[in-house]
């Protein structure tokens, strides 16, 4: 039998106001039973619809025709073929779908992260045709025939991209949410500097492009489109500097291996 709110209120020293709120939320007793009753009648059909939609979404991922008992899936469907991390992918998308959503929701490449979804944080940064862009502001439809590189495409087999290794070596993240964007951004940054592209803090504007030496300020300015709420900036800076300097990045740690328990291997 359900506990009544007054029984619980004694244990938790609740005020009348708090009890009223919980009653209205239907967490306890009579109102909870009423609430569940309501869900019981409408809920089953809602759940069925939800499951059908999910099933369709999964079917969509395999490239199956996107029609069902509900009619065409998209009001403004478009066919888009992209080359993602070297693999050709054909999709049918709604005209509203961004490259970010296409990668995450349709191609199961969830390495690219959705932060603000408004072009303000940089966590969705990917490399399109060699240039870093914000995938949240790029409509998938505009990426027809384009080469897209995401964080999943940087490593070669088991060997990490030098910047991935450097980010680990220098502990260039805490929660890691912005990291795929930071890394894709820094990969492109190194090419831009090599090509002599300027930044807001470049002192001189030489007529002819020449490779730019990346001072601390240059790296900070060029990475300013990638926010990190954990504040790992100093370590991100170090990681990029090491790779820019061309020195080899030594991985100073390894995963704990239980088969070798008792050995001196570090964790």
């Amino acid at each position, binding site marked *: 039998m359900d506990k009544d709110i007054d029984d619980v209120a004694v244990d938790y020293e609740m005020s009348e106001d708090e009890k009223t709120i919980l009653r209205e939320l239907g967490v306890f007793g009579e109102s909870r039973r009423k609430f569940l009753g309501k869900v019981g009648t409408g809920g089953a059909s809602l759940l069925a619809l939800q499951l059908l939609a999910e099933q369709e979404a999964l079917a969509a991922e395999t490239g199956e025709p996107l029609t069902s008992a509900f009619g065409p899936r998209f*009001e*403004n469907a*478009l066919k888009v073929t992209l080359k993602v991390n070297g693999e050709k992918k054909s999709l049918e998308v*709604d*005209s*509203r779908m*961004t490259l970010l959503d296409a990668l995450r929701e349709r191609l199961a490449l969830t390495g690219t992260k959705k932060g603000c*979804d*408004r*072009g303000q944080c*940089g966590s969705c*940064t990917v490399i399109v045709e060699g*240039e*870093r*862009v*914000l995938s949240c*502001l*790029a*409509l998938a*439809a*505009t990426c027809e025939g384009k080469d897209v590189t995401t964080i999943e495409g940087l490593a070669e087999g088991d060997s990490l991209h030098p910047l991935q290794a450097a980010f680990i070596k220098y502990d260039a993240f805490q929660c890691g949410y912005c990291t795929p964007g930071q890394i894709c*951004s820094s990969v*492109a*940054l190194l090419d*831009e500097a090599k090509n*002599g*592209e*300027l*930044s*807001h803090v*470049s002192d001189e*504007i*030489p*007529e*002819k*492009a020449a490779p730019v030496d990346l001072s601390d300020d240059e790296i*900070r*300015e*060029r990475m*300013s*489109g*990638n926010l990190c709420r954990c504040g790992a900036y100093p370590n991100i800076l170090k990681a990029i500097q090491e790779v820019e300097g061309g020195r080899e990045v030594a991985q100073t740690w390894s995963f704990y291996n239980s088969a070798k328990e008792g050995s001196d291997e570090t964790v």
Partner: protein
Amino acid sequence: MKPFKYEKAKDLGTAASTLDSIPSASLLAGGTNIVDLMKEDVARPDILVDINGLEFSKIKKKGNTVSIGALATNKDTANHPLVRKHFPVLTQSILAGASAQIRNMATNGGNLNQRTRCMYFNDPSVTCNKRDPGSGCSAMEGLNRMHSIFGWSNRCVAVFPSDMAVGLAALDAVVNVANKDGESRAIPINDYHRLPGRDPSRDNTLKRGEIVTTIDIPINSWAKNSYYLKVRDRASYDFALVSVAAALDLGGGVIRGSRIAMGGVAPKPWRALIAEKELIGKKPSKELFERAAKMEMERARPLEHNEFKVKMGERAIVRALQKSGNA
């Protein structure tokens, strides 16, 4: 986001024709502003005409003018040898805006046609005369720290957010536009954007169905003595509180000509014409710059929260002129 039909434009004529015949059609180039606005439900086009792929992406010299394609990206424009050589202040102003990712996507035409970042304009749940004519201006009585101190009307106090356009305003750029019949028009940059007056809904003087094709900049004698100064709340990746594009034509120890354009202070790139005039024929000095800057900023009409922009603007003009003239 409201559903829309996506159309890839075959050529300028068909794109302009769609724009002309369907009032709810919008153009898509880099997408860095329109996609945002659509996500916020501020822009609600029925048709989005993708003009990427049209030919207006070249930057080339034509006689004594450099012609910059509307579809060239901000990044390519800032780094182009012709722009670096002749208009370093344009390179500086472009690089002061947005982030590397955004500059890689954003186009020059899109930069000119971007909408204000006034937070009330970008929030459909509040009133805004620019977004919803006649509904009222929330910024006038609201938080207006980021808003205009010049050129505003009691219907709209928003600022035009571009850095690049401020650089172009100091360079006497000309915006070329064309319509579905192939007729073209050349609009001086200072006449391209407009003040809100009684109708804040229109940011510029483009006619319906017209598309920006190129931006022409005359090669001038002040490229060597120019500077773009941007003051903002954080060191990078933010809109200007105040910015100044300054250029000086120096000869015989005096200022023969000057250009001062300001960003972050008005609904369009603001030419500081009073200060410019004060400099002509005089020897460059800090005192002269200070006097000219003061004369200009005395005309400012600050709002409740942005009086700081008056002093900031004055000092920014002086600093930008000093940097330009190496004085």
